């Protein structure tokens, strides 16, 4: 019996290496667990038929390496036999990818996303694809065409979103690791709701090739894991320069070096004394629950205990982040979603002529939230409103970016709650889009500015009159390309929480 609850990448690789169990046995254990809990949680949309075949290949590879005297792990096989779940908007050649939409119900990926190709190279095994808000638009997976993913900690509550299936599956031991995508908090917020770790890398540090586009200036792929160390290992395996081939928005080697050097600190140097910025004005924004506030205070105390310096910083323009996001993101959505026209891929609803084909296909096969955002984007980009919304939002975005630049002259990392509340009840926000969007208030900023951010479990909230305890998370943000600072601070935080 494999103890799935307490596995990490390192432990798993050791056990596989020692022959305590095989990849096939490990994947079988996950498949058993999925059989047991997925009917309640609804994290998996599909378990791949070839999951065990992939595991067998990993076992054979390990055996060959052992006999050839090359048993150690190197970068090529850094994740040999590690089971992953994939968010349904990332392409894995020959396998279905629907973005949890009806319009792509039958779509089969024609090629591998760069992250998938890199993970294959590292020896990962892909168990299946997991649920999400349709085309990653939402914060609860309630917008999936295939039903909501429930929170493993309380089945009456949402798992968060849009990578709700990715977070829930790690929380329910349905996979050791999952991949998510984050446009405004879609990795971090569900990770916080489900009590797991979620990393949004620096924009451009991980290739978006093979990720279905939502907001192209914001989208990034990242891991959801149980520990910060696992997030670091997966990040190291998927970070790359893809600018000369598939994704021209990935950073070049030179850019990565320059950005890394521009914040002059070595977090590995002992004793580590990082400067942690907190933003008092953010605490006054509406909608912040008491449990979250108290939990943040407790987290600040932990960092003080670690010998870190806590500094109050001013971010005068951060309050506009959510408004800026809900202008720029729909604007990009409205153009990215134009490709779903019933001609090139996916399903189609026939009409009398080509125009009717478009109207029917998009009207009937795209869900409400997707259509709402397309129309919102069309509105803010339309002549007469372009200056008032889109251009203004870009100006505000630059101001927010300069707030960050100034802040990172004084601190190494910025600490906020990940979300203003613990996971909410299914259906709680369905009639009020703004209340739903407010759940993104702490996370969208990192996407607008492009900095890396991580959500780490920070405790539980007890909700009146309910037996289940709901997980909470803190968010750490670092300067561009300084994921290393997040990992050092994050591991320290985990260690102190015990």
């Amino acid at each position, binding site marked *: 019996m494999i103890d799935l609850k307490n596995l990490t990448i390192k432990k798993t690789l050791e056990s596989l290496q020692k022959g305590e169990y095989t990849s096939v046995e490990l994947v079988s254990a996950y498949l058993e667990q999925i059989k047991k809990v997925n009917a309640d949680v609804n994290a998996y949309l599909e378990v791949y038929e070839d999951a065990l075949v992939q595991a067998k290949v990993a076992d054979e590879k390990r055996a060959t390496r052992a006999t050839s005297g090359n048993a150690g792990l190197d970068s090529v096989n850094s994740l040999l036999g590690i089971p992953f779940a994939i968010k349904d908007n990332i392409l894995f050649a020959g396998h279905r990818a629907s973005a949890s939409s009806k319009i792509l119900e039958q*779509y089969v990926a024609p090629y591998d996303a760069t992250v998938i190709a890199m993970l294959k190279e590292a020896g990962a095994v892909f168990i299946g694809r997991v649920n999400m808000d349709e085309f990653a638009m939402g914060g609860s997976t309630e917008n999936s065409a295939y039903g909501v993913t429930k929170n493993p900690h309380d089945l009456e509550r949402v798992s968060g979103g849009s990578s709700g299936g990715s977070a829930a599956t790690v929380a329910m031991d349905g996979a050791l690791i999952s991949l998510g995508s984050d446009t405004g908090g879609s990795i971090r917020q569900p990770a916080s709701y489900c009590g797991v770790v979620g990393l949004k890398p620096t924009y451009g540090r991980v290739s978006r090739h093979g990720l279905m586009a939502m907001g192209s200036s914001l989208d990034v792929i990242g891991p959801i894991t149980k520990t910060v160390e696992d997030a670091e290992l997966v990040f190291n395996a998927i970070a790359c320069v893809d600018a000369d081939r*598939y994704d021209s928005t990935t950073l070049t080697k030179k850019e990565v070096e320059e950005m890394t050097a521009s914040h002059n600190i070595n977090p590995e140097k002992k004793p580590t004394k990082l400067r942690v910025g907190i933003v008092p004005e953010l605490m006054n924004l509406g909608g912040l629950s008491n449990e979250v506030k108290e939990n943040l205070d407790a987290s600040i105390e932990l960092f003080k205990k670690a010998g870190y310096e806590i500094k109050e910083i001013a971010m005068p323009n951060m309050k506009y982040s959510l408004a800026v996001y809900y202008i720029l993101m729909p604007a990009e959505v409205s153009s990215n979603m134009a490709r779903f026209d019933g001609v090139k891929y996916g399903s189609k609803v026939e009409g009398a002529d080509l125009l009717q*084909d478009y109207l029917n296909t998009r009207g009937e096969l795209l869900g409400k939230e997707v259509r709402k955002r397309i*129309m919102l984007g*069309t*509105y803010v980009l339309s002549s007469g409103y372009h200056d008032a919304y889109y251009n203004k*939002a870009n*100006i505000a975005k630059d101001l927010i970016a300069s707030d960050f630049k100034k802040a990172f002259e004084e601190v190494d990392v910025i600490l906020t709650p990940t979300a203003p509340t613990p996971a909410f009840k299914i259906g709680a926000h369905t009639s009020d889009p703004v209340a739903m969007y407010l759940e993104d208030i702490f996370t969208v900023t990192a996407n607008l500015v*492009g900095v890396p951010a991580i959500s780490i479990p920070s405790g539980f909230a007890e909700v009146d009159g309910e037996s289940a305890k709901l997980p909470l998370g803190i968010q750490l943000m670092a300067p561009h390309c300084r994921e290393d600072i997040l990992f050092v601070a994050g591991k320290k935080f985990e260690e102190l929480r015990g």
Partner: protein
Amino acid sequence: MTITQADIQKLASLSRMKLTEEEQTQFAVEIDSILGYVEQIKEVSSGAQGNASHADKKPADIAHRNALREDVADTDLNPDASILIDAAPAEEQGFVKVKKILG
């Protein structure tokens, strides 16, 4: 700013999407409430543009650089064309099939 049913119909038509009447009413209310929320960016002064000079902002620099590769055919870059054609909802003799475009 109030979004009317007529605005919604125009947006739906521009975005090539059919909406039911019920959806039109619902979207008018919801889009109105979202626009009500994002209104706050009007407080940001347009003159503020000068504060965020180009030299100041890294992400924008990234957005504005060219990333070109050699203009050579690389078959590795693309999967077999037939796989892509197969993904289309309708095909005929190896072509994607669409309805007549010109009247």
